């Protein structure tokens, strides 16, 4: 048996490790061991590598693919259309990513401090970006849906936080740190939601090409892929006499163009945001509901369990994909709604798992001992039982993320996804009527496959890591 090393992977763990190790030594070392083991697995490495690449793609999408020149000089003036056209979401993602990089590299502060700093700075960036969008929001006055949208966004971000921060952190985070995080999270929610309201897009992309053709531009610096996802190149028909729709892959459009004339690669890069967000947030919601419901069922047993199991049965008897199709058809196409729904319909697996764990744990001596010491119920549930039962949920969660991505692409494929926003499934759907454009047939599907495969590989490696038979043979 080697001495278990403390986990270094996530911000807060090493910082709070000392008090945590005293209360629940089992878990922190187990997580650390699992993390180390995972890094040694080629499958997990490939999976995590692809997800990381996807994350970078999502963050830097506007940098890589945009019709707006970074900088240009036109009519004697130097300007940056690119910066002018950044959306609030772009600003928030780029800003918080850069801050995160800086904080990760700055190793002198404690992990918990850095995490808090990151949250606050991100909140500030988001609020600034949101401020720009507020007048638009006020002008639109779609206040009827306000509470619903706000609640949904709050639910999503809270559960994202829950999965990313709270679950791995539980035993080490002090109550104050936790409540601070929650407060920041709430601020983030509001701001994020406001930031997403964008002015109606009436950008005329063709203006850039026309300006270039008319030789008004003295010099310009274009992004590597000079097409925005919604640049439908309507000017090409008149300017070049070429129908820009469903063009097969070429040098100019590496993956070709889609049915409306937009560049497929550009749309795919921007669609990685949806894929990532759907996977993480939907699974976060599902895990949150699953842990709460399953924990209550397992802890209280008796009639709570009986009632809960009936609900679980109901939800597991409904074919999820059908329910989703129906809800989307009846409630409209909304990304957030889709995330919430995938989350709401997907919690059953986590709940039954946590329930079984808790039923086992509540009989165990250390829980009985905690009771005997007069520990309050909240503490017994969350500090003593949850950390011991929650680790295997990570396995389910990574398969869940893969499923959520599959479901989103399937819904988009069936024509129930978002209309304007790019999505892999929607691109794949177009390939059905555009047989000659093989770029549409191959690449969006490949992207879905690789992402799902990556998450499945990570899940598989996690499962192996948590399997006592495998783990022990590795240790001894």
């Amino acid at each position, binding site marked *: 048996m080697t001495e278990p090393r403390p986990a270094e992977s996530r911000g807060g763990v090493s910082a709070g490790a000392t008090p945590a190790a005293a209360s629940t030594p089992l878990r922190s070392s187990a997580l650390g061991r699992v993390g180390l083991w995972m890094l040694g697995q080629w499958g997990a490495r490939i999976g995590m590598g692809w997800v990381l690449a996807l994350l970078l793609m999502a963050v830097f999408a506007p940098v890589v693919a945009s019709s707006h020149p970074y900088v240009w000089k036109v009519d004697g003036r130097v300007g940056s259309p690119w910066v002018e056209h950044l959306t609030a979401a772009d600003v928030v993602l780029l800003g918080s990513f850069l801050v995160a990089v800086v904080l990760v590299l700055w190793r002198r502060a404690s992990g918990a401090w850095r995490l808090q700093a990151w949250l606050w700075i991100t909140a500030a960036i988001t609020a600034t970006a949101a401020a720009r969008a507020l007048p638009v929001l006020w002008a639109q006055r779609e206040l009827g849906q306000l509470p619903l949208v706000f609640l949904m966004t709050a639910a999503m971000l809270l559960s994202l936080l829950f999965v990313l921060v709270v679950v791995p952190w539980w035993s080490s985070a002090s109550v104050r740190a936790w409540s601070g995080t929650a407060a920041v999270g709430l601020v983030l929610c509001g701001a994020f939601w406001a930031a997403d309201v964008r002015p109606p897009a009436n950008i005329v992309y063709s203006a850039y090409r026309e300006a270039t053709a008319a030789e008004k531009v003295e010099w310009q610096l274009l992004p590597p892929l000079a097409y925005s996802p919604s640049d439908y190149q309507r000017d090409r028909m008149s300017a070049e006499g070429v129908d820009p729709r469903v063009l097969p892959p070429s040098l100019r459009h590496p993956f070709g163009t889609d049915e409306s004339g937009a560049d497929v690669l550009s749309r795919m890069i921007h669609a990685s945001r949806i894929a990532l967000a759907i996977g993480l947030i939907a699974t976060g919601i599902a895990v949150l509901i699953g842990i709460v419901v399953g924990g209550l069922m397992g802890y209280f047993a008796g009639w709570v369990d009986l009632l809960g199991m009936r609900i679980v049965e109901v939800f597991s008897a409904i074919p999820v994909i*059908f329910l989703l199709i129906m809800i989307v058809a009846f409630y409209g196409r909304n990304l957030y709604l889709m995330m919430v729904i995938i989350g709401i319909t997907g919690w059953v697996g986590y709940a039954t798992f946590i329930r079984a764990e808790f039923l086992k744990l509540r009989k165990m001596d250390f829980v009985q001992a905690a009771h005997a010491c007069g520990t309050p119920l909240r503490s017994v549930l969350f500090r003593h039982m949850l950390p011991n039962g929650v680790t295997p949920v990570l396995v389910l969660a990574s398969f869940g993320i893969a499923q959520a991505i599959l479901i989103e692409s399937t819904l988009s494929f069936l024509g129930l996804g978002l209309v304007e926003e790019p999505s892999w499934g929607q691109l*794949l759907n177009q390939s059905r009527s555009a047989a000659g454009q093989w770029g549409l047939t191959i690449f969006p599907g490949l992207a879905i496959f690789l992402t799902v495969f990556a998450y499945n590989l990570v899940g598989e490696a996690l499962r192996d890591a948590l399997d006592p038979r495998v783990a022990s043979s590795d240790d001894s």
Partner: protein
Amino acid sequence: MLTYIVRRVLLLFPTLLGVLAVVFFVMAYSPGEFGGTVLTEDGAQTEGEDAKRARKALERRYGLDLPKAAQFGRWLNQVSPVGFRMSGDLKLDDAMRAEVGAVLADQPFNTRPIQLERAVDLVETVSAYVGLSALDAAQRLDAALDQPSASQALFDATDVSLEPEAWEALRLYLIELENKPERGLQRAQSEYIKVLAFEVSGRSRIRFDRPALKVPDLGQSLRGRSVSELLAERLPITILLNVLSIPIIYVVSIAMGIYAARRRGGAFDVGSGVMTLGLWSVPTIWAGVLMITYLANEQYLRWFPTSGLHDPQAAGMAFLPGWGPAGFERGWLLDTAWHLVLPVVCMTYGGFAVMSKVMRGAMLESLSADYVRTARAKGLAERLVLWRHAFRNSLLPMITIISGVLPALFAGTVIVETIFSLNGMGKLGIEAAFQKDREVIMAVTLMGGLLGLTSELIRDLCYAIADPRVAYD
């Protein structure tokens, strides 16, 4: 055992009720209008007065003016084999219909028998809702139709005050009967009769007399077709897909799982693990699109048909393949099989990963179990040890998993049927969702829920048979 089954079946109903309630209320409270796209018989969007009337007709047909919970109760009552009779259920027997027909025989629309039938239907409806005897109603209608104004005629016939729109509908109906004898209108006419039925009956559409046995009715789709008819048409295709897929998934997974477990850590074990995980990650939609584009499309290989379950000429084919005048003829059976290859491949490939992994794990566990060592110590040949002792015990988890497999396959059919244009239940469900067709969605949910719950029942029963440790009282 029997009591266990009975109890299990009884417990099935609350869950089914829960499933139906969830789906029903999700629809009932949706902001979008029920049946948002009301279509006429020709599939065109209705407009203006027509739309208003059609809307009204829908409200009446589906009881949309009731409180939402009452709507659900109404639907349940309609579906349940035992329940209160709805007003529309009162039917005249053949003798009575003949009598009524005789009374109305002298009216101008009697030139075509089918229209006389409709008039008799009207009498039937009126007598059912108003409480007149059928002959009485027929005589009053006959007398009233002699009058110049059709609406006045009906007023006299029924003696009931109707809403103006209903009068209008009725008048139009009668004019249609008189002036437009095309066959295509007959369905619309029967629709209007049902509209009338609701108009006349007002809010008391369920007669709370005595609960009685009745024929379960899944209602009517938005386009007016009977839902049970629709299901009867579509369900066999879905069942066919599933019946073909399940054995394939099980046989292949079991074989792969055993082989991998026997050579643990070998090339096949690792290779099949990665391969099935990869297959599992291939989205069905992509696989379908790739197959259609490259294996079925005319531009590439044209090995398989792109869509449908049969060739257009399939109905005229012989059942079995054989040699005809034009050389080899594939016959109906082979034609169907040929059409089914791609959909079944699409439905099965993803299932191998989970199932073979479960089988491999179970096999490894039982191969290292003490009783297998005992069997070896007894002097059993390795083949017998494997099949009689290890394999038998490894099947238990495979039974457990079936309750997850069936619903997953149902979800698979939704996608596969859409991609390959097979008119099965999954496609029906999607179409219904797009049209917001409540009765069809409820029927599909009922079928899906029943499938899911019976699969759990099947699992428990199989388990009880396979594992003597499980005691059911």
